[in-house]
C-alpha cells in the first residue's frame, strides 16, 4: 500500500522539479527587489571564462544572505542582475582586466546611468581561492567473506576571499579587504570512509561579511546595517 502512494508522489515531485524549475530566474529576482535608498551589488570579478557555478556561486550566495541579515534595509543585487545591467561590459571575455580599467568602465556615461537607475550605491567585487593539501591514506582491504576501506586521510584547507568595495560616488577610493579561514577535513575509514568536512568557505564568508558590513556602517548609509 505504501509503495502505491510513493510512486505517484515521486513522479509528481520530479515533474515539478524537472520542468517547472526552468522558469526560476529573473522574474523571481525582480519580484524580490524593493527600491530602497541603498543598494549593494555583489559580483565575482574577474570571473572565470568557462566554469559557471561552483565555489564562486557558493560564496556569492553566502555573502548576499549574510549581508542581508546584517543590513535588512539594503537592497541586494546578485551578479546575474549586475552583469545584465552592464551587458556586455562584464562578460568574461570583455570584463575589465585591472582596477584602472574597472574605474574607467564604471565611469562611462551609460554605465553610471544604468547603475543609478537601479540606485546601486556599492559594488562589492570578490575573488575566492581554496588551497588543499592531502595527507594520510585509505586502502581497500579484503579478507575471507568481508572487505572495505581502512585508514585515515586528512585534507588541510585554506579559503581566501579578496574583496574590493567600490562606492560609486567615490570610484578612486576603492577599499580592499581579505578574509581567510583554515580547517581540516577528516576522513576516517573503517569499512566505509566517513568524511567530516571543514567548513572553511562558510568561515571565510562570515569573516568577510563582518568586514563589508563594517565598511558600510561607517559610510553615510550606515543606518541600513545592524
Amino acid at each position, binding site marked *: 500500500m505504501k*509503495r502505491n502512494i510513493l*510512486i505517484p508522489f*515521486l*513522479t509528481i515531485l*520530479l*515533474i515539478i*522539479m*524537472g*520542468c517547472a*524549475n*526552468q522558469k*526560476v*530566474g*529573473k522574474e523571481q529576482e525582480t519580484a524580490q527587489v524593493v527600491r530602497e535608498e541603498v543598494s549593494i551589488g555583489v559580483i565575482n570579478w574577474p570571473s572565470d571564462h*568557462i*566554469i*559557471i*557555478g*561552483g565555489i564562486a556561486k557558493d560564496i556569492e550566495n553566502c555573502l548576499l544572505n549574510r549581508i542581508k541579515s546584517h543590513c535588512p534595509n539594503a537592497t541586494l543585487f546578485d551578479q546575474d*542582475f549586475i*552583469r*545584465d*545591467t*552592464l*551587458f*556586455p*561590459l562584464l*562578460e*568574461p*571575455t*570583455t570584463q575589465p582586466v585591472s582596477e584602472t580599467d574597472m574605474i574607467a568602465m564604471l565611469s*562611462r556615461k*551609460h*554605465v553610471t546611468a*544604468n547603475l543609478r*537607475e537601479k540606485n546601486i550605491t556599492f559594488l562589492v567585487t570578490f575573488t575566492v581561492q581554496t588551497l588543499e593539501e592531502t595527507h594520510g591514506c585509505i586502502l581497500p582491504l579484503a579478507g575471507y567473506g568481508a572487505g572495505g576501506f581502512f585508514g585515515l586521510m586528512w585534507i588541510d584547507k585554506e579559503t581566501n576571499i579578496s574583496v574590493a568595495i567600490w562606492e560609486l560616488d567615490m570610484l578612486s577610493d576603492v577599499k580592499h579587504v581579505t578574509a581567510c579561514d583554515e580547517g581540516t577535513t577528516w576522513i576516517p575509514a573503517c569499512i566505509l570512509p566517513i568524511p567530516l568536512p571543514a567548513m572553511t568557505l562558510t568561515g571565510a564568508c562570515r569573516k568577510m561579511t563582518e568586514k563589508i558590513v563594517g565598511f558600510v556602517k561607517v559610510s553615510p548609509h550606515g543606518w541600513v546595517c545592524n
Partner: protein
Amino acid sequence: MSQRYRFENLFVLIIVCVQLIASGCTLKPEDKFESKPIYQTIPAIIGVSVKNSFRLSNYKHTLVDVEFGESSVALFLQVFESMFKNITELPKWPPWKTYKHDQDAIIELDSSQIDLTIGDNLINPDVVTVLYTVCLYKPDGEQIKCWTTQATKSHQRILVEYTLVSSSIKPIVEGAMRASIADFMKSFENDQAVQKWQSSL
C-alpha cells in the same frame, strides 16, 4: 516474490520514471536583456537580415531540447538597437541582395550553432559551445566583413541536480550565448573595416 526482489523492482521503476520525466523537456533560453545593452551608438540606418538556418538552429537531445535560434535572434535585435541609430528587419522574401536599399548597410545573422555535451553528476560536467557568424554588407551587397564568435561554458552537476538536466543546462546555454554576443560587440567596435565604413557615412 522475495522482499529483496520486490525492492529491486521498485528501484528500477523509480530510475525509469526519473529518466522518462527528465526527457522531453524543452528549454527556451532567456531572450531579453534586463537593460539596454551598452554601446556607443553608430549614427547609421541598418537593415537586418536573418537567415532561416540561423533562426531554426536548435538542439535536440533525448534529455532536453534547446530552442536556441529564436532566442538568439531576439537578443541580437536588442543589441543592434543599441548599436545603431535605427534598424529595420528586412522581409524574408524577396532576398535582400536582389533589390536596392536605402539603408547605410545591411547586417546579416548568417549562421548559428550550438553543441551540447551532457555530462553526469560526478566528474563529467555539462559543456555548451555556442557559435555565431554575423556579416556586414554595403547596401549594394558587397561584403564589408564577417565575424565568427564562439563561447564555451560548463557546469558540473551535483547529486541533487541529477534529474534537473534542463534547468541545470539553462544557465550555461544563456552564459555561452551572452559571452558570444559580447565578443561580437567587442570585435565589431574595434574593427578597422567598421571604422572605415563609419567614416564613409
